């Protein structure tokens, strides 16, 4: 038996892992990143002459469970046509047996890196609202993301915000007319009749059975952390969004002075309500959460916090600072003139 040197072992590891794209329309360009199930490569779609991202499974399709998960992720993405969700173009199996799907190649930065350049709190909140739009859209289509975190959001070169990595997504309810198109081999869906509401949603997938913990600590709701899949619903994503919002509004400890802003009680109340341990106490929908953030941005009272008179006055002052200062200046000037003429 031939002895393999360290160099030979390394080369075998590298070369044997490169996906075999022969017989496909894609030409491999470079490895970009690795995800939970596979590796993402940048490739050229030779037929259309455009760059795409190829997500290729680690193991051959004979690994039924992983192949089903990747197929499922592609199908989840295919049903979510939204400017805030990365579009999928193609799905298939390579000559080496590995399942892949092709999606839009997003040139940009992960949000956790990009955010370092966003120094204004309102700009950060506006970014958050766009993420909420995409998630709310997915919820409206009956899809939960279940792994929302800054590393799973990309900000493109032209400021587009895209929610990525739907590998852990859960489908709560089927869209009318879609079930018939599903491949039964990869279908994880169940009909809306079987569901009495979010809390009753039954996950048909065998990937994430009861007791299986999927998600990222720090962004994962308590019910997800317990692996209690029957109680995971839209409010679990709302929990993650609340943790996400807290990340966005908390300046890093090492930040320069220009990155420091006041820790606002209203914002903190929004984060706290979204991340309540009891799902019943959280926002009922992403739209409610984003509406509260929008109200905050507009200087209006937020539903998450009951204001005191002082809070209201402070908010009123912040909202109409210029007008208040002008009026105050006018009144002071007027008083001084009156005093001067009455001497």
């Amino acid at each position: 038996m031939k002895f393999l040197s360290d160099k030979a072992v390394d080369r075998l590891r590298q070369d044997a892992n490169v996906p075999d794209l022969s017989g496909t329309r894609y030409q491999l360009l470079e490895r970009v990143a690795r995800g939970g199930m596979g590796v993402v490569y940048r490739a050229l779609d030779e037929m259309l002459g455009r760059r795409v991202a190829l997500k290729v499974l680690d193991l051959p399709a004979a690994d039924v469970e992983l192949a089903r998960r990747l197929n499922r992720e592609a199908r989840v993405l295919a049903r979510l046509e939204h400017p805030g969700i990365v579009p999928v173009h193609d799905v298939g199996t390579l000559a080496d047996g590995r399942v892949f799907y092709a999606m839009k190649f997003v040139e940009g930065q992960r949000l956790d890196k990009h955010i370092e350049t966003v120094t204004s709190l309102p700009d950060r909140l506006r970014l958050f609202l766009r993420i909420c739009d995409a998630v709310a859209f997915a919820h409206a289509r009956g899809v939960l993301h279940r792994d929302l975190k800054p590393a799973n959001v990309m900000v493109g070169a032209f400021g587009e915000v895209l929610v990525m990595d739907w590998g852990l997504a859960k489908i709560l309810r089927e869209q009318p007319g879609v079930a018939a198109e599903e491949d039964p081999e990869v279908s994880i869906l169940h009909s809306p009749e079987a569901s009495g509401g979010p809390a009753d949603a039954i996950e048909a997938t065998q990937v994430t059975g009861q007791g299986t913990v999927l998600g990222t600590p720090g962004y994962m709701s308590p019910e997800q952390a317990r692996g209690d899949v029957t109680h995971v619903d839209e409010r679990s994503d709302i929990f993650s969004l609340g943790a996400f919002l807290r990340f966005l509004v908390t300046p890093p400890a090492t930040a320069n002075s220009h990155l420091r802003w006041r820790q606002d009680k209203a914002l903190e109340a929004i984060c706290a309500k979204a991340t309540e341990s009891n799902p019943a106490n959280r926002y009922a929908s992403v739209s409610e959460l984003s509406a509260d953030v929008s109200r905050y941005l507009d200087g209006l009272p937020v539903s998450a916090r009951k204001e005191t008179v002082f809070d209201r006055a402070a908010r009123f002052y912040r909202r109409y600072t210029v007008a208040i200062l002008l009026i105050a200046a006018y009144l002071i000037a007027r008083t001084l003139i009156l005093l001067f003429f009455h001497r």
Partner: protein
Amino acid sequence: MAGDQFPVTRWSVIDAVKSEDPTRHERALDTLFAAYWKPVYKYVRLRWNRPAEDAQDLTQGFFAEVLERELMAKYDPAKSKLRTYLRLCVDSFVMNQEKAARRQKRGGNATHLALDFQAAEGELAGATIDAASIPSPESLEQFFEKEWVRSLFALAVEDLRKFCAQRGRERTFRLFEDYDLSGDPEISYEKLAAQYAIPVTEVTNALSWARREFRRIALERLRELCGSDEEFRREARAVFGSDAA
């Protein structure tokens, strides 16, 4: 579901060693020993700092112990990786030998495996392993893993060679050997094409086929050596080094 995860064409040494069927049992042990004897020998040499002769006896003794004490039947895939279990068994075996303060001479009725220790010693003598670089338990685990991957790949390359010979694709294997196994940083598809007087596209296709088959064979061997689907996935990622690429 279990059937989906482990189709009948696949098998695992973990199940097969418990089999009543002597042929299946023996094949499982052969597979296990083929993949692990060199990592075990080198590990004993370096971790326990044993001279070659002692390490040979201990390696033989260890595998005899695996057979006699049915260590594989005691392995629980839910608790650890097979590789880690075997490494800990080696540690425990060597420590017990030390405690007894005598080396167990193997012979007579004891099981004796035909292992090419000279080759393993030759590999150790090469510059590829630096004993000084493996002082901590973590690096020992890495060392054992590295040797195990080398052993797995060497077996898969040998299988590929036979596979190519069966299909009359000896030249494909030679191209694979020259490009992927030589470790020569100067080698290129163009050089190989000139050397074999064939078009570059033929080199590309041949290497693509050989790598695909190598990967398939290595994964099949790996699957045999794993106790569960989850362990197989973890090991496959570790072996093909996606993270390290």
